[in-house]
């Protein structure tokens, strides 16, 4: 620090005077005490200083009481600030070019919006009345990017600049997805982490890592409590939505405890597990209320209000007499214990509505509906791209989300809702970017519907994925190049050629079933019955943007695989500020818990 010292002299003045002769000089008086030096200290101030936001100089002054020629803190008698002037306008050629540039002004505006959001956000614990968790199964970062571009191009834009609904959320971060025992995870372990705050093993549902997969006896003592269960305990309404089977790993992790994700109905379980008292996942869904009450003495809950998804097979007996009008198999049900769980559910909840098709869904009046159970397909619901092919019709994810919120918000205590787009994962497994991306776009629409149907002051919305896939966006395509197209580089109109002299697509897979050219086919699963192809193809005359095109894959596998890198997490509403940085996946639960104060309120309710 530079210090400028100014020393002032202290002057002693002796007064004398007489009219006669001067007498002899008297004796010298005693020397007076030395005066004090006056010191001034100047300190430069950086931009952002509280007293000088644009920087400047701080001037401290005072007497050097201790004579050390330094203006110590206790010696400062006065402080003044000389601040630099505020720059209110950019000026000059280069500055003008920068400040009027669209990228510059858009980004500047985003900062202002973010600042406003940050100031407006509720950060205190328990501010969220409602919590909605959106999970895109297999929705890795590259899938989000490609879907964003595809959605933008469908809207007539170049695409890259487009924003999916959750791209606009004010807070985002990264999530490490690995399971306790697996570097590349599956949906069961990852969703358990999100719902309970505890990371666990691959393939298990709602239980901690002390479990041995498929070992019924190891479940006892490992059961975790989920956010949905706590929401029930505190009196909120609850809902679960999935385009996969409602008993599939992701939705199951909200309500079930199972040593194996595949125990979706009793016929999927080993006999000894059934004999030992382990309950299949479908049965746990229907018995959710009584099972939860049994775990906590004196607890009285009212059960899950909204359940939408596929998977009728796990709720019906293996008997053609129980087939619905929407059945596609000769015997729709799989259950070998003779139980009709849809009937059991209806018996428990006489005011509830059980629906299996679009007409039944449309007939639901959310204002008067207490609870609803929708099973729209025998197995997984269809991809969004071929949804219209279902014989009796299936609602879209957006429709299910909007209607669920309309039912759930009838409760003044608020609600918890989990929404899974389950077939993004299946599109990728089949090697179809088209199906994965069209389902992702529908997922983003569902998020948008939730944003519009709720109040950001009392509703936390989190959007994330359980894991990613080996899906890549590669090469150097020019701006606006069709995301499913062949790579056409900047300044060119013809596709770039690889070292083998053949064109190549922007998106592709590291492994999987590889190339298929199925024209206008919209069901990715068609490719499963076809040959795995891993050698390079001449795509010159192939329409790679068609719904039936499956991208090339390097490693030949019968099913494309999950990937192990981080996924994104996006949030808005109370508590959203906690979604930042790189975190373990279990953080998701704790953010929801902070926002809604689940644990404390549940403890209070159980006292």
């Amino acid at each position, binding site marked *: 620090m530079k210090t400028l010292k100014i020393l002032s002299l202290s002057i002693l003045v002796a007064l004398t005077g007489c009219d006669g002769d001067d007498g002899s000089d008297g004796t010298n008086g005693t020397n007076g005490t030395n005066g004090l030096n006056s010191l001034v200290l100047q300190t430069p101030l950086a931009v952002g200083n509280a007293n000088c936001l644009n920087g400047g100089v701080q001037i401290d002054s005072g007497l050097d009481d201790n004579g050390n020629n330094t203006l110590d803190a206790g010696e400062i008698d006065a402080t003044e600030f000389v601040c630099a002037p505020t720059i209110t306008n950019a000026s000059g050629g280069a500055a003008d070019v920068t400040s009027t540039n669209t990228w510059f002004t858009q980004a500047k505006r985003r900062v202002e919006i973010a600042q406003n959001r940050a100031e407006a956000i509720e950060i205190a614990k328990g501010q969220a009345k409602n919590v909605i968790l959106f999970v895109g199964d297999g929705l890795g970062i590259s899938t989000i990017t490609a879907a964003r571009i595809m959605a933008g191009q469908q809207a007539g834009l170049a695409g890259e600049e487009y924003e999916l609904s959750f791209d606009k959320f004010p807070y985002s971060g990264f999530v490490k997805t690995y399971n306790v025992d697996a570097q590349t995870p*599956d*949906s069961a372990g990852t969703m358990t982490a999100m719902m309970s705050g505890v990371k666990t093993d*691959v*393939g298990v549902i709602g239980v901690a890592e002390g479990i041995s*997969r498929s070992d019924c006896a190891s479940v006892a003592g490992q059961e975790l409590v989920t956010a949905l269960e706590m929401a029930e305990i505190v009196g909120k309404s609850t809902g679960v939505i999935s385009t996969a089977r409602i008993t599939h*790993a992701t939705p199951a992790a909200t309500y079930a405890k199972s040593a194996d*994700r*595949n125990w979706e109905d009793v*016929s*999927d379980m080993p006999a000894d597990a059934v004999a030992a008292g382990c309950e299949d996942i479908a049965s746990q869904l229907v018995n959710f209320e009584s099972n939860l009450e049994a775990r906590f003495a004196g607890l009285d809950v009212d059960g899950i209000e909204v359940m939408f998804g596929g998977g009728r097979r796990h709720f019906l007996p*293996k008997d053609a007499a129980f087939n619905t*009008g*929407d*059945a*596609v*198999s*000769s*015997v729709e049900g799989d259950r070998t214990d003779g139980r009709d769980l849809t009937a059991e559910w209806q018996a428990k909840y006489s005011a509830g509505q059980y629906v299996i098709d679009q007409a039944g869904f449309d007939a639901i009046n959310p204002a008067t509906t207490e609870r609803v159970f929708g099973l729209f397909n025998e*197995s*997984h619901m*269809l991809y969004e791209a*071929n949804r219209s*092919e279902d*014989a*009796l019709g299936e609602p879209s994810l957006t429709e299910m989300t909007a209607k669920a919120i309309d039912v759930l918000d009838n409760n003044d205590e608020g609600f918890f809702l989990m929404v899974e787009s389950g*077939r993004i*994962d*299946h599109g990728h*497994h*089949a090697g179809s970017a088209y199906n994965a991306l069209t389902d992702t776009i529908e997922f983003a629409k569902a998020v948008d519907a939730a944003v519009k149907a709720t109040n950001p002051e009392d509703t936390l919305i989190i959007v994330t994925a359980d894991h990613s896939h080996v899906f890549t966006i590669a090469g150097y395509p020019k701006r606006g190049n069709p995301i499913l197209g062949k790579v056409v580089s900047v300044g060119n109109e013809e596709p770039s050629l690889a070292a083998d002299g053949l064109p190549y697509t922007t998106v592709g897979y590291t492994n999987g079933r590889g190339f*298929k*050219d*199925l024209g206008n*086919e919209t*069901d990715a*699963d*068609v490719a*499963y*019955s*076809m*040959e*795995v192809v*891993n*050698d390079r193809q001449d795509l010159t005359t192939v329409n790679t943007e068609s719904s039936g095109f499956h991208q090339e894959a390097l490693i*030949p*596998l*019968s*099913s*494309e*695989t*999950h990937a192990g890198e981080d996924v994104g997490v996006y949030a808005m509403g109370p508590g959203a500020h906690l979604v930042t940085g790189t975190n373990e996946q279990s953080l998701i639960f704790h953010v929801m818990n902070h926002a809604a104060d689940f644990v404390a309120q549940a403890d209070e309710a159980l006292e």
Partner: protein
Amino acid sequence: MRPLSSIMKMTKSVSFILLLTSLPALVLAGENDKADSESQSCNAEYLVAHFEQSFGDSNTYAKHYAKEHVFHGEAHSNRNAHESAQENVQELVLVRKGQRVAHYNPKHQIANIWYLSKQNQQQLTRVFEQYQQGIEYQSGELKAPSQWHYVRSLVKQDLLTRMSLEQTSEQGCQQVKHYALETATHQYQLKWLPAVELPRELVVTNKHNGQTNRLQLTKLENDKVAAKQVAHQQFAKWDALPTTDYADVGDNENNPFLAKMINQGFSGISTSHHHSH
């Protein structure tokens, strides 16, 4: 028929396509039904039909055939490219029970089982007896309307439509209609059993390379009572096996059978058969 030693090799395949039932030339487009209304009194709903199918040995032809089937959605078949390289005679058992039809390969113990729903959707389950496991495919997989005729009768409707009736022999449930067709590339000879809607024999000859493929009915069980019972028992045995949606295979790497599918492009055919040539 050429000797086994002349069978071509196709080494690149890591196919999950199984066992093409019919001859390649059967795969054509079109509609029209030539089922004989007089035959309705003869039992065609419950039956067990045994076929022997033999394949020629043209390398070029087989490769073309495999590619055509792979890329045009005709893979719901009982023969794959691997096998066309290794075996030129196969046994096929067709089991019919109402709206359910199975194509069973006894050697590999694999059955493709189709069901036509009331909504006219066709659903396929592939059963691997050796592994006591089945794989289910979504119904949207089989879209071509004529596909069901092929599944049920091993001959597509449009082939019947295009062929010329040359003569009719025998009567009633035993009636045989002799059809023929010659195109720029192939000659077709079909002996058709309208009562049961099955071929007694279909011979397809490639005019360019002389390769002849043949589908021959060797035994037919269609006694109303006995065949119904046999078909019922057979389907019940297959139905008892656990199944997995193929869409779920990718999430089941812990299952040894499914892990093979994921990691090795496993076709379900045992190794000893797989590399027998």
